[in-house]
């Protein structure tokens, strides 16, 4: 959600934004390339990989266009080596892969907002892939494994970013920042339960609960981002839950894992 870049943020947006910015600063020296999967770049035929050398421009979000945070400048540099390695490993795993290199291609809000916070100024290159709308959790795990293999094959130190959300109940009114609140108590309870499990290293329990969480709290893209992250092999230690709050009613968090 682009709200984390707002000029006049709600308290929760500000906390989430601060956590992401600080995390980006902490990791900057240890990351060669940010490897990004965003649920907002969704596809239906296999996986698409951004291969344009220098995607840049101004992105206007279809829903938030009337707000300062609905119009985002972006300036990304693709890491061609890592991206090609990721394409190769994903194709070798049997997936349909597509290179995406088109002027005017609509980079999604999630990727742009995440990179604005973690990678301001586009200092580090990016490798990004779409999320297939219909890929089951096991396929997302494989995409994560392929990402990890690509990092090894390319020799790059990667910072893996899954741009997703927790519960997705959205308030169906135009809100002022001071009116920000979670959509429902049930969603809040579910979000906190999931974060508690992630924060105590019980990823397998989250994987088991994923479908139930999806049904009960309309988790973003059925929370398959966790399968992708698990596939990278990075979730071996407890997650560091840096922030949790709501964005227009949806559940949002910044969680960081350092590979043990």
């Amino acid at each position: 959600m682009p709200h984390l870049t707002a000029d006049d943020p709600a308290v929760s947006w500000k906390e989430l934004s601060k956590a992401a910015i600080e995390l980006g600063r902490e990791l900057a020296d240890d990351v060669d390339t940010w490897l990004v999967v965003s649920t907002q770049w969704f596809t239906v035929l296999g996986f698409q990989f951004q291969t344009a050398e220098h995607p840049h421009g101004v992105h206007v979000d279809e829903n938030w266009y009337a707000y300062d945070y609905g119009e985002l400048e972006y300036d990304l540099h693709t890491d061609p080596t890592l991206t090609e390695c990721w394409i190769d490993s994903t194709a070798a795993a049997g997936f349909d892969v597509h290179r995406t290199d088109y002027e005017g291609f609509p980079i999604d809000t999630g990727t742009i907002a995440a990179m604005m916070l973690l990678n301001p100024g586009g200092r580090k290159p990016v490798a990004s892939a779409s999320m297939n709308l219909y890929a089951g959790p096991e396929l997302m795990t494989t995409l994560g494994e392929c990402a990890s293999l690509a990092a090894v094959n390319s020799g790059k130190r990667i910072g893996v970013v899954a741009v997703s959300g927790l519960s997705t109940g959205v308030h169906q009114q135009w809100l002022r920042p001071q009116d920000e609140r979670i959509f429902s108590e049930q969603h809040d309870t579910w979000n906190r339960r999931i974060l508690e499990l992630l924060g105590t290293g019980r990823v397998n329990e989250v994987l088991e609960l994923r479908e139930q969480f999806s049904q009960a709290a309309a988790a973003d893209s059925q929370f398959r981002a966790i399968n992708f992250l698990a596939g990278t092999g990075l979730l071996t230690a407890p997650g560091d839950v840096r922030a949790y709050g709501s964005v227009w009613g949806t559940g949002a968090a910044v969680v960081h894992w350092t590979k043990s």
Partner: protein
Amino acid sequence: MVGHHVNCVPRSTGVSVEPIFPHLFRYHYDFQTDVELAHAIADSAEGLGLTVGRMTNPRLRVDYATIGSLHLVNDSWDIPVVSLSANNNPYFYSDAPQDQMELLGEATRTAIEATGRRAIVIASNSLSHMHWDREPDPPEDMSAEHIYNQHQYQWDMHLLEALRSGLGPDDLRSIISAHIEATASETKAGSLTWMLSALGWPVMPADVLAYGTVIGTGNGIVEWDMGKSMIS
């Protein structure tokens, strides 16, 4: 995501690159909006209690389905347009509530009548929506193009026959709902319901002009000629 959006930009120009099929659809568009009608629809929708967004940012990319539909219907682009969003998630876990799209249709009809416009109402969505997860090479390889399965085809035919037979609104609502359940139809996003509501749920036979598949999904071109209805 929030509310229903009405494009109120007087002149929309830009490039619409389709995010899923960018290799097939990159369109330079340039069209005029009927701003008076756009605001009238927004006013009417708000009057019915809907949350509305009046989209006035000229840099917003117009979506491919709007552009594609308008190109096919009128490639001279010489008739002004009002484009509306569909606030409905057509994918996983959607229980497909259609009530707001019914209201949006009512608001559209009210605004058209109030402004005295002669309008063509266009809804863009597929019928059955199960599709292949791989694209043939080339994408136009017609040996690979056919319906996803017979079940989907039969349900599409069932819906089209219902539209052809001129059923009343209650029957149509019921069949549309059953079709969504059976085929993961894109009508779940509410476009068809909005259009029928905007037309006042006409009890007249629809003219099914074409049916075909796209990567396995079912698609129809269906017309309700309200002028013909009034003449008869």
